[in-house]
């Protein structure tokens, strides 16, 4: 084979010199279990002689034990990894394989083709420059082919090869190949894929993988390996982008050195270049590019470097250093595409952590514009996104970030969402653009502020946030507390769950998503009322910790008092003043907290009221005293 160099035996030093200059291509293979994808990868490994004798021996032994190819070698066994998968005979996660030729080193992301594994494919594709889409020549372009094509184009892969496999099973017939090419082309145009190459092949027999196939003399195009060795690796394109350095770590070994370390996400940098730091907008000039092997005269996209600047300006982890000519944008509201990656669905209004580059901020989805049906590409209305769903959503952040549209730069335009309680990575997102309102709507300065309004009322505004099961006694106690405060001349407002649902929130139901939105609105209203100088009492089940935490975060630290009306489920159900528990038990009321919808009790409430040992009136008196003790009632 041409790519296994004879130099290894004859002149190893020259071989090594040649190999030091190889480039790196990362690509993804997509297809279903039956398309022969693992067989193809196994063959690439085998043919590029990257297998060792003991691996071959193991494959031969395994082929007899688990193989699906009879007496022949089952190349798929080289790729399929974990014990459980091996027994099921399928790949269930992203696996990375490595091989190399004289020209390139390759990293292959192997991802499964099942519908429920969108998450894995998106993960695998995020780092890749090219994609190999497997099509079974007998079956042609299938729904899953369209799905995979959409996903790779969504993730910004620009070079697609459609590998029309199992040509040996259709007698190497050219018309079969042509028909599939035509089918695919009409579809590819719709989703904006323009660099598409079609190769007829047989991974099993080795046709057009490394060597041109003798069985398909009508095909004059490249072999798969020929394609992979020459397709553009994206380096050049990224280097033409404006300079971006997301700052990962500030290097301060002593008082005289202050370096900004990170991986260049786009462009080229040289000492003397004028740069702007986002989101602060401050400017300076690059002084040095420092490495352990001496200073560099320039550095390019993809390199991990340390910069020093001519001026002492305040830069911390998460900031982005850009070229001053074309700096990154800075905004706090975006239109994005979100891919949901977790069993627990996306809840609009719930705060998640958003990590982009080296920056982590808090973000909420304010609006799901639509969900994309990945099979038909239709837009469907959605109030939430389930695992493997893809939607176009507006996002609102708690502070501005530096960004580029994902289409321009993956590393400054791609982000992940993290659940604040479980710490799981629950979603991945691509920034389309900043919402114009985030750049044009500024907070209007007002002269009469919260303190001024409060002082006129001779009180210190706050929120008494009641939480507890239905029937725990929230409304009853809240009502008594307000009566007592009112009697003492305090300005109060009681936001009660049922009452609010008759007005402000009458469009909301009781699904998890609606409950989150219900609480988000109430929290925002409570915040406005605190700003107005009022003592606000809220009486909502507010079952989820995340939303109570969000409500707390909207006001000052000492302005939020979480009151847990602690009533055991059996006691609350025994009271059942509204007959709701009976209905729920009969199955007539869905999503009822405590029955078929969870209640996450506060771990450390500011006040806990045990309604089994305390009457409603005692509880109210206790709360007023507690408010006094905390200085909430002024002088």
């Amino acid at each position, binding site marked *: 084979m041409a790519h296994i160099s004879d130099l290894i035996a004859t002149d*190893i030093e020259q071989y090594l010199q040649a190999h030091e*200059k190889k480039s790196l291509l990362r690509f993804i293979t997509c297809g279903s279990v039956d398309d022969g994808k693992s067989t193809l990868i196994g063959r690439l490994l085998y043919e590029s002689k990257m297998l*060792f*004798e003991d691996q071959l021996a193991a494959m031969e032994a395994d082929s007899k034990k688990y193989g699906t190819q009879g007496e022949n070698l089952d190349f798929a066994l080289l790729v399929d990894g974990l014990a459980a998968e091996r027994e099921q005979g399928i790949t269930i*996660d992203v696996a990375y394989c490595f091989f190399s030729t004289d020209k390139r080193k390759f990293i292959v992301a192997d991802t499964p083709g099942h519908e429920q594994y969108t998450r894995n494919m998106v993960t695998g594709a995020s780092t890749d420059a090219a994609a190999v889409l497997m099509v079974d020549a007998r079956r042609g372009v299938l729904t899953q082919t369209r799905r995979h094509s959409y996903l790779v184009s969504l993730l910004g892969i620009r070079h697609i090869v459609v590998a029309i496999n199992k040509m040996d099973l259709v007698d190497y017939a050219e018309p079969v190949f042509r028909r599939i090419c035509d089918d695919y082309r009409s579809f590819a145009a719709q989703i904006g894929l323009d660099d598409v190459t079609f190769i007829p092949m047989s991974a099993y027999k080795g046709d057009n993988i490394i060597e041109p196939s003798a069985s398909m003399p009508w095909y004059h195009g490249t072999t798969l390996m020929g394609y992979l060795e020459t397709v553009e690796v994206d380096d*050049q394109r990224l280097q033409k982008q404006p300079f971006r350095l997301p700052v990962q770590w500030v290097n301060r070994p002593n008082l005289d050195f202050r370096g900004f370390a990170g991986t260049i996400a786009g462009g080229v940098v040289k000492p003397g270049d004028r740069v702007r730091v986002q989101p602060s907008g401050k400017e300076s000039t690059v002084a040095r590019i420092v490495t352990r092997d001496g200073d560099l005269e320039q550095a390019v996209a993809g390199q991990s470097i340390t910069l020093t600047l001519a001026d002492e300006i305040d830069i911390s982890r998460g900031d982005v250093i850009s070229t001053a000519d074309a700096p990154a944008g800075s905004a706090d509201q975006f239109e994005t595409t979100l891919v949901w990656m977790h069993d627990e669905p996306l809840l609009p209004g719930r705060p998640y952590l958003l990590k982009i580059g*080296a920056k982590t901020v808090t973000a909420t989805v304010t609006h799901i514009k639509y969900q994309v049906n990945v099979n038909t590409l239709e837009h469907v209305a959605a109030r939430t996104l389930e695992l493997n769903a893809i939607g176009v959503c507006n996002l609102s952040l708690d502070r501005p970030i530096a960004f580029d549209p994902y289409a321009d730069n993956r590393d400054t335009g791609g982000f992940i969402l993290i659940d604040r309680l479980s710490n799981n990575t629950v979603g991945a997102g691509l920034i389309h653009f900043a919402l114009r309102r985030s750049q044009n709507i500024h907070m209007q300065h007002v002269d009469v502020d919260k303190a001024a309004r409060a002082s006129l009322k001779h009180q210190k505004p706050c929120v008494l946030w009641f939480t507890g099961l239905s029937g725990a006694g929230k409304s009853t106690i809240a009502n008594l507390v307000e009566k007592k405060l009112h009697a003492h001349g305090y300005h109060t407002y009681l936001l009660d769950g049922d009452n609010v649902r008759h007005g402000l929130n009458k469009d909301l139901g009781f699904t998890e998503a609606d409950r989150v939105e219900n609480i988000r609105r109430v929290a925002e209203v409570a915040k406005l009322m605190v700003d107005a100088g009022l003592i606000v009492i809220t009486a909502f089940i507010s079952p989820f910790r995340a939303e109570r935490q969000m409500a707390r975060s909207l006001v000052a630290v000492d302005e939020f008092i979480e009151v847990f009306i602690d009533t055991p489920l059996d006691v609350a159900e025994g009271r059942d003043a509204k007959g709701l528990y009976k209905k729920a038990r009969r199955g007539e009321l869905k999503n009822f907290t405590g029955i078929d919808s969870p209640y996450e009790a506060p771990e450390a409430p500011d006040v806990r009221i045990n309604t089994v040992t305390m009457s409603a009136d005692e509880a109210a008196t206790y709360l007023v005293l507690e408010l006094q003790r905390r200085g909430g009632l002024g002088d």
Partner: protein
Amino acid sequence: MSLTHLQRLEAESIHIMREVVAEAENPVMLYSIGKDSAVMLHLAMKAFHPARPPFPLLHVDTRWKFRDMYAFRDEMVSKLGLDLIVHINPEGIAKDINPFTHGSAIHTDIMKTEGLKQALDKYGFDAAFGGARRDEEKSRAKERIFSFRTAQHRWDPKSQRPELWKLYNARKHKGESMRVFPLSNWTELDIWQYIYLEKVPIVPLYFAAVRPVVARDGALIMVDDERMPLHPGEVPMMKKVRFRTLGCYPLTGAVESEADTLPAIIQEMLLTKTSERQGRVIDHDSAASMEKKKQEGYF
């Protein structure tokens, strides 16, 4: 300007190390003295230059490494001015665990697996760099770069966090820890090429030299010190050998070789095609053995 594959691998590893240092509270680098550790340490020196790597090295010792390895370790640490923590499982010392009387499985479990867990708990490390590569073994091909362990140090292959772009979610609950593998995407050939190109210092045992060995179960075992019990009538042979991988000397097979330069080693590797783990006696059990070990907490 186009980056070479080694430049891109280097940049990725450095990015990963900086991310851990920025997000973890108390990171540590596991240092096994082998060639992968040598490359990892070299990359760490680059990642944080001109500062020194802001974490100590941890060597989980078994007391059965080659003498050359101990000498090399101490020399590197003093030359680079790094902090080194050496941990030996005290229970293993008390029971005098060794590969001869207890066999490789028990020796490895107590001295390495248990020893590592003890050391991580003792010093409260919440992130540990390891030099494992995805090309070493099939189950590793599917492990993430940031790999989470429960407070009991267990790995669950079914619930791994997706890793997209260069974004790593390093958040964890109290008691949980992460193992981070900056060399995940390197192959054995990449490692050797990088050592050659960057003149990374490695233990002399990788180079062929005349050494005393005995043949045991088809493997050549070096008689590295007087603790090696010889069978009746067994006399060490002087052979020109080298090691493709380094571990406890009684568990590490030598190969006969003339390769005493880096190009010769790489040449030999490319021509002989025996994958490197074959020299490790622990791997011979079954194909799924590494996965089992990993779920139990072996690195």
